[in-house]
């Protein structure tokens, strides 16, 4: 009889330790959700700050371009108000964060054309744009018959492995979108274009971070309601 009591006591001990492990794992999971939520919030705030700064820079460059080219050449009246196919589009993938939640993931596809199917994830390529932005802001004499961007293409190392024809196509698309302002445009206008492109990439990152916050918020809220 003593042995049975000991056996019963042994089973209870085992059960309580299993419950302890389960609650520890639950606590750990809760903490992970809270951490994910706080990280997402922090990233969201940082991205919004970056977006504000990039937009401010773009507006300043646009104002400079308007000052140098004249208000008649940089004006909303130049828009033809016709329907155009989108040069940049957005793709949405649904990530299954869990069985209950579905988190959308936004991806920007920049400068789409039949020959240039280029999709960038939310993490944008700042290096190329940053290099172009720096070059356009340098105080250099412009040479007639050659653009700053063709010089940049020649000097940039091809370390990323992307074919030069794709970059040429992207530059052509950029020039095409600026063609409504005339053939020769101010470098400030090109810089403004790059700034707003960067802002667009940041916006996609903000959208992804927003969905991450809302997903983590739902998980934390469920855990709070269950306690």
């Amino acid at each position, binding site marked *: 009889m003593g042995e049975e009591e000991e056996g019963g006591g042994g089973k209870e001990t085992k059960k309580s330790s299993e419950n302890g492990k389960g609650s520890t794992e639950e606590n750990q999971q809760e903490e992970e959700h809270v951490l994910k939520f706080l990280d997402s919030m922090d990233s969201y705030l940082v991205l919004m700050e970056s977006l504000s700064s990039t937009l401010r820079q773009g507006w300043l460059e646009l104002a400079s371009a308007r000052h140098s080219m004249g208000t008649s050449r940089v004006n909303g009246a130049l828009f033809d108000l016709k329907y155009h196919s989108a040069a940049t589009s957005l793709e949405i993938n649904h990530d299954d964060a869990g069985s209950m939640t579905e988190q959308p993931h936004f991806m920007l596809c920049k400068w789409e054309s039949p020959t240039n199917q280029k999709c960038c994830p939310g993490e944008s390529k700042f290096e190329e744009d940053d290099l172009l932005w720096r070059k356009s802001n340098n105080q250099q004499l412009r040479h007639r018959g050659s653009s700053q961007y063709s010089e940049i293409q020649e000097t940039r190392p091809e370390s990323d492995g992307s074919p030069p024809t794709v970059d040429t196509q992207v530059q052509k698309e950029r020039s095409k979108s600026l063609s409504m302002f005339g053939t020769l445009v101010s470098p400030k206008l090109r810089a403004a274009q790059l700034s707003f492109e960067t802002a667009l990439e940041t916006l996609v990152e903000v*959208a992804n971070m927003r969905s991450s*916050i809302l997903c983590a918020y739902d998980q934390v809220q469920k855990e709070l309601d269950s306690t």
Partner: protein
Amino acid sequence: MPISSTIMSSILYSGPETTAKQIEDAFKEFTARENIAIVLISQYVANMIRFLVDSYNMPIPAILEIPSKDQPYDPAHDSVLSRVKYLFSSESVASGRR
């Protein structure tokens, strides 16, 4: 040249004469369309229809409040962060109960 409020397929220019009702109608239209993934709205325009923006809780299209040239971004008015503040205040209440 004053900017008048016109709806150009997927853009609404909001000017001095744009009413809250027009903004509200455009917001409802853009959020109902299937070919729109992200709705960008200047924060000062979002403040005019704050009740509608805060009550929106669908994942797609995502509503992003952005700064405008004249009005900087204010995190205190952001709808996503407002929801977060509510969570923090409820958390402090819950910890008090324990």
